[in-house]
């Protein structure tokens, strides 16, 4: 039974002669019991700092950390009933694997018999039973990591924290371990907080993702929702590989100054995109603040929502192919948009191997079509999503 609540957590480094950094700003969120929650964001966004405040390794400048309703701000890390796996595993060179597993139990004065039992139990679970007498320098990356995980879980903590645990593993091992972690968490049903900058990892592991940037929480949602309904431009651009394509745009005023479904269009300096063609009903548009004619917007389209085709006449998006990257059963085609300012913008398109654009080559002039419902609009200033 472990619910975590963070109330207006702030962390400011420095001051007194050194420039201060406001690493964590007003972070406020709840992690439910048994949930696998991922803190996602680029380096320096505050995700690790927040994790460390939960663990007790950093003292918040202001704000409260509650575990199961109790405020734990003043507790030493080891007293919070929380366990953590560090990015570097932080194994002790002078102890054997068994020594590592026993250490937390010794701190809790668990009697020897019980200790033995739990050590063997967790060693079996993590498949390191045959490594119990080995020392860290004899372990491979994966084995070291499992030892770190074992050391954390042997205490049966209420909360399980992981700080970018997969970063130090090679690609293949990373995928395997990812699956193993997910399975483990499911079995144990332990409330878990996992920090990473890799959005693929986040999307595959998480029940809930907390996207952070610049110390603030941007959005808290399920992977599915983050992908389909990003709350702002940052989240939209962060989730998805290759990232969403953007370009500056404005809404074209209609003839009579009213927002009218039949003539509503998005205008960039390179092309014009009639909204009606995107399956956007007028009802979606009318009344939305920010969607007034002339409003400065950013247009976003995911690579998988674009279709490459032959150059048609007209004002639609078009450009020249600059790079083609084969990726197994699809290709990523980079198209430099033509026309005005958009000439500097390169959009990426995910094209299935046997679909449209199969014969496209570098240098070709092509036209792009946006799939229905593939359009996203963001206010240029606030960067919030308006459509």
């Amino acid at each position, binding site marked *: 039974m472990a619910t975590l609540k963070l109330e207006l957590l702030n962390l400011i480094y420095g001051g007194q002669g050194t420039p201060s950094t406001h690493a964590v700003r007003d972070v406020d969120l709840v992690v439910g019991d048994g949930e696998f929650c991922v803190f996602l964001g680029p380096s320096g966004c505050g995700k690790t700092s927040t994790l460390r405040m939960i663990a007790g390794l950093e003292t918040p400048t202001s704000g409260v950390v509650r575990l199961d*309703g109790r405020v734990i701000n*003043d507790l030493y890390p080891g007293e919070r009933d929380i366990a953590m796996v560090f990015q570097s595993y932080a194994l002790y060179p002078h102890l054997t694997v068994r020594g590592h597993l026993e250490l937390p139990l010794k701190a809790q004065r668990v009697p020897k018999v019980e200790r033995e039992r739990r050590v063997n139990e967790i060693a079996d679970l993590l498949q390191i039973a045959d490594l119990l007498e080995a020392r860290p320098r004899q372990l491979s990356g994966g084995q070291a990591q499992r030892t770190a995980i074992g050391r954390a879980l042997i205490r*049966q903590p209420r909360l399980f924290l992981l700080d970018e645990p997969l970063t130090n593993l090679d690609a293949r091992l990373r995928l395997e371990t990812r699956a193993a972690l997910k399975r483990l968490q499911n079995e144990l049903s332990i409330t878990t907080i996992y920090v990473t900058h890799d959005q693929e990892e986040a999307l595959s592991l998480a029940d809930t993702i907390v996207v952070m940037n610049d110390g603030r929480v941007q959005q808290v949602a399920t992977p599915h929702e983050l992908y389909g309904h990003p709350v702002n431009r940052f989240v939209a651009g962060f989730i998805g590989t290759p990232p969403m394509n953007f370009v500056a745009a404005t809404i074209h005023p209609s003839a009579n100054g009213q927002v009218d479904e039949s003539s509503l269009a998005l205008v960039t300096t390179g092309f014009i995109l009639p909204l009606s063609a995107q399956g956007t009903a007028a009802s979606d548009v009318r009344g939305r603040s920010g969607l007034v004619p002339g409003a400065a917007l950013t247009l976003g389209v995911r690579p998988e929502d674009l279709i490459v085709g032959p150059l048609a006449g007209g004002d639609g998006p078009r450009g020249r192919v600059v790079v083609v990257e084969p990726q197994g059963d699809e290709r990523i085609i980079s198209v430099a948009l033509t026309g005005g300012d958009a000439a500097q913008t390169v959009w990426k398109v995910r094209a299935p191997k046997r679909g449209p654009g199969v014969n496209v080559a570098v240098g070709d002039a092509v036209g792009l079509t946006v799939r229905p419902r593939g359009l996203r609009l963001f206010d240029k200033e606030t960067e919030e999503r308006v459509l």
Partner: protein
Amino acid sequence: MSGAVPAQLADVTVEQATISSRFARQAKLFPWLLFGPTILYLLVLSIFPLIYSLGVSLYDYTLGGDATFVGLQNYRDLLTDSVFWRKTWTTLQITIFAVGIELALGLVCALVLNRRLPGIGVIRLIIYLPMMMSPLVIGYFWKFILDGSFGVLNYLISFLGIPPQQWTIDLTLAKASIVLVDVWQWTPFVILILLAGLQSVPPQIYEAATLDRASIWMQFTRITLPYLTTPILLALLFRTIDTFKIFDIVYVVTAGGPGDLTETLSVFAFYEGFKFSQLGRAAAISWLVVIVINILATVLIKLLARQRSKAVLDEEGAVA
């Protein structure tokens, strides 16, 4: 699913309650344990004696006799005494020559020893031994070797056609003898430090320079020397201060002689205090030495600190 719930958490019923830490008291007392005993010990046995010594220097104090307060008279007497200045000059001479030779010789030796030859590790270790030995003992070694009647040095130089010398008694050679002994004992220290500096250069830089067809001289001045600046400054700092303070070697090899020709300031203070029982004057001389050393040290340490931060930045840029 969690293990034994800590008693405090189970008892608390109020929602807003903050639980206090078991380790909080330990965490508060811990720094006191770490710093307290040491600072106390050093205060009593090093700061206090120093201040006491300052106090003594303000008195005319003879051992077993009376102590009369004379204020800064001791200092005034010393600073106007040509004898004092002569001995200061002696100390400076010995220091400058010894340190200069140590640095030059040390650099040459370090460059020679910076090779990967079989057994070089053992050879280097043996060369480092002199600096680990008691200066007094080394003083005795050399007193024997430098002896005018049966010293082996006179024997060895006879092969160069030089007649036997009274190394420790001759007016012109006595200071040289002191310098010789100090150089023998402490050049290995300079070699140690400079070698560390030489070996801290990443080999890729030399390889890149060779690919760029840089000459040996260029490689030395442009690559090696900058890496040596910090070690040289550090060696300069330690050796200058240590040689300025020199006592053991002088006491054994020449006892400050002939006459008081090789009396360095430390020896001077010692004789004032324990041969002539002028404890006040002895303390005053010591404090003047402390002041000079502090000035020297401040200058050198500031240089060193600046060099260290500069070196760190340079290194980060060069080996990105």
